[in-house]
C-alpha cells in the first residue's frame, strides 16, 4: 500500500516536469517578436524597441536556457501579466477561481444524484421503461454539445420566461457585496451569503447558478450514469449476490449493502474523467452564460492573443489534473485491495 503510493508520488515530479516542458514548447512556437509583444503595453516609439526587448529578456537565447529561466520564474509563482484580467496571471487565477469552484461544486449535486442514483435505479429496473428512458436521455445527453444545450436553456428560461438570468449576480447584489457589512469569506457568493445570513443574496446567486450548473453537469451525469449502470448490472450477476439472496436477505439489504458498495468501485475511477470534464466544461459554460470565472477568462484571453493567461490557465488545469488523478489512484487502491497487488 505505502509502496504503491510512494511509487505514484515518485512519478509525479516527472510528469509535472514533462507538463512544463510541453507548455514552454507550445510557447516557443511563437517567434521572439511575438513573445516580446506580450510584454509590451503600448506601441514602441522607436524602431529598434522590440529588438532591444528581445535582447534584454534573452528571447533569442538557446531554448534550454530560456526554458530554465522561465521555469525559475514559474516556480516562484511568476507567470507574467494577464492583459485580459489587468493583473498578474497568478492573481488572476486566484481572483477567478472562487466563481468557477462554486459552479463546479454545485454541479456535483446533479452529477451525483442524476448519475449514481439514476444509474443504480436503471440497473435495478433493467430493460423496463425506467431503464429505457434514462438510457435514451443519457444517449441524447451524450450527443448534445454543451453550448447548444446552454443556448437552448437561455432561450427558454431567460429570453422567454425571465426566470434565470445569465451572469453571476444582479447589479443590486454586486453593490451590496462590496459594502463593508457583507464579509467575503470564500468569494463563493452562495456560501458567503449563508455565512452572512443574507438569504436575499443567496437566492440571487443561486438563481444565476441554475443554468450554468445544469449545463456543466449533464454531460458528466450522462457519463456517470452509463458507468454506474453497467457496473451495477455486472455486480448483480455475481455469485455472492445470489448467495445473499439465497440466504433469504431482504432485497434492499442485498442491493444496498452487498451490491452497491462493490458496484461503485469502478465509479471512483471516473473521478479523473470527471475533473477533465469540469475543466473543459467551465470554458464553454462560462462563455455561454457570461459567468466571470476561470474558463471565461481563459477563453477571452485565447481569442485576444493574451498567451500568458492561456498558458497560465493550461498549466493550472493540467497540474490540478495530475494531482486529481493521483488522488483517484490512491483512493482506488485504498478501496480495492486487488489493485495494490499489481
Amino acid at each position: 500500500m505505502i509502496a504503491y503510493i510512494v511509487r505514484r508520488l515518485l512519478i509525479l515530479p516527472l510528469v509535472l516536469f514533462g507538463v512544463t516542458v510541453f507548455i514552454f514548447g507550445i510557447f516557443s512556437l511563437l517567434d521572439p517578436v511575438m513573445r516580446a509583444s506580450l510584454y509590451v503595453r503600448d506601441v514602441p516609439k522607436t524602431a529598434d524597441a522590440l529588438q532591444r526587448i528581445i535582447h534584454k529578456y534573452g528571447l533569442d537565447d538557446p531554448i534550454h536556457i530560456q526554458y530554465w529561466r522561465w521555469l525559475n520564474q514559474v516556480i516562484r509563482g511568476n507567470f507574467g501579466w494577464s492583459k485580459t484580467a489587468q493583473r498578474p496571471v497568478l492573481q488572476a487565477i486566484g481572483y477567478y477561481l472562487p466563481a468557477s469552484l462554486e459552479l463546479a461544486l454545485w454541479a456535483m449535486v446533479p452529477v451525483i444524484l442524476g448519475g449514481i442514483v439514476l444509474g443504480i435505479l436503471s440497473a435495478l429496473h433493467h430493460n423496463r421503461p425506467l431503464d429505457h428512458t434514462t438510457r435514451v436521455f443519457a444517449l441524447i445527453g451524450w450527443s448534445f454539445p454543451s453550448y447548444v444545450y446552454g443556448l437552448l436553456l437561455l432561450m427558454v428560461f431567460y429570453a422567454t420566461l425571465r426566470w434565470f438570468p445569465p451572469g453571476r449576480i444582479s447589479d443590486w447584489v454586486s453593490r451590496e457585496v462590496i459594502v463593508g457589512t457583507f464579509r467575503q469569506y470564500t468569494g463563493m457568493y452562495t456560501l458567503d451569503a449563508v455565512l452572512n445570513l443574507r438569504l436575499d443574496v443567496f437566492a440571487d446567486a443561486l438563481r444565476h447558478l441554475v443554468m450554468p450548473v445544469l449545463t456543466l453537469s449533464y454531460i458528466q451525469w450522462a457519463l456517470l450514469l452509463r458507468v454506474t449502470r453497467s457496473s451495477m448490472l455486472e455486480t448483480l450477476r455475481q455469485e455472492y449476490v445470489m448467495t445473499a439472496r439465497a440466504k433469504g436477505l431482504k432485497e434492499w439489504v442485498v442491493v444496498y449493502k452487498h451490491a452497491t458498495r462493490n458496484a461503485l468501485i469502478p465509479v471512483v475511477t471516473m473521478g479523473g474523467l470527471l475533473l477533465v470534464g469540469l475543466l473543459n466544461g467551465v470554458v464553454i459554460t462560462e462563455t455561454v452564460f457570461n459567468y466571470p470565472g476561470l474558463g471565461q477568462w481563459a477563453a477571452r484571453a485565447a481569442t485576444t492573443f493574451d498567451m500568458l493567461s492561456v498558458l497560465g490557465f493550461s498549466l493550472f488545469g493540467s497540474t490540478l489534473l495530475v494531482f486529481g488523478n493521483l488522488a483517484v489512484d490512491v483512493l482506488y487502491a485504498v478501496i480495492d485491495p486487488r489493485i495494490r497487488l499489481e
Partner: protein
Amino acid sequence: MRTIRQLLRNPLSLTGFVLLLFFVGVAVAAPRLAPPARAWEPYRIVQCGFSPTPAPPGDPNPFRAIWKVVTGQATLCQVHPFGTTGEGQYDIYYGVVWGTRTAFQVGLIITGACVLIGIVVGAIAAYFGRWVGEIVMRITDIFMAFPFLVAAMTIAAVLQPKIGRGLVTAMIALIVFGWMTYSRLIRGDILAVKERDYVQAARAAGAGHLRIILRHILPNAIFPTLVLASMDIGSYVISFAALSFLGLGAEIGYADWGQMLSFARNWIARLNEYWWIIFYPGMAILLFVLAWNLVGDALRDVLDPRLRGRITV
C-alpha cells in the same frame, strides 16, 4: 450479411444509419440544395443585405422555401428558409447545408489523423522492446495530463497568429491532443498478438520488422481501435465546433455549425424572437453527432463485444 441484418433490426442503430445517410445525402447534394453565390468559394456563407437584426425565415414552411430554392423559383436571399444571423446577414440555411460538408471533413480528418498517429506510436511502443515502450508510454502520459479542450484551445491560440484562423489551425490543435487513447489501446492489442506462433514463424522465415508489423500484427490487432474511432467521430465534431464557437476555429462567415452558433451570443436576451439562429445549426450538430454515436455503438456491439460498456470521452 447476418451482421447487417442484426444492425438493421435494432431500432436505435437503424435510426443512426438513416440519419447518417441523410447527412451524406445533404453533403453530396450541397451545390444543388444551396447554390453558392460565388462558385469559387462555396464555403463562404451567402450574405443577404445589411440589416443589423436577424431576418426571420421567409416562409413559415421551411420545406416549401427550400423547394423554391432548389427548383430555382427564388434565390436564397429572397426566401432564406432558415432566416439569417443578424450581424453580417449570413443565410443560415446555406451555412447548415454546406456545414454538413465541413462536419464530415473535420470529423473524418481528425479521427483519421489521430488513429494514424496512435497506431504508429502504439506499434513502436509495443514492438520495440521494454525500454522504448516505457519511454514512449510515459510521453503519452504527459499528453494525457492535459484537459483535452483546454490544451487544444492553447494550441489553437498559439497557432492562430502564425498560420491564421481557420479549419487547419483548429484541426491541428485537436489532433495534437487526440491520439493517445488509440495508441494505448493498440499497444495492448499488439502486445497480445506479438507472441503468437504465426508472428514467430514470420520472424523465423526472415521477415523484416516493417513487414511483420504491417502484414502480420496490425491486421489482427487494429479492429478494436477502428471501432473505438468510429465512436469518437461525433465527439471530435463537437470539440471542433466548440473551438469555432469560442472564436478559435473556422473564421467568421465560414460554413461551420459552431461558428454560426456563436452569432447567437449577440442575442441571448432575445433568443425567443430569434430562435432560428440556434435552432437550425443546433439541431444539425445534435443529429449529426447522435447519428455517429448510434452507428458507433451499433458497430461496437456487433463487431467487438469485448468493448461493450466501455466508456470513452
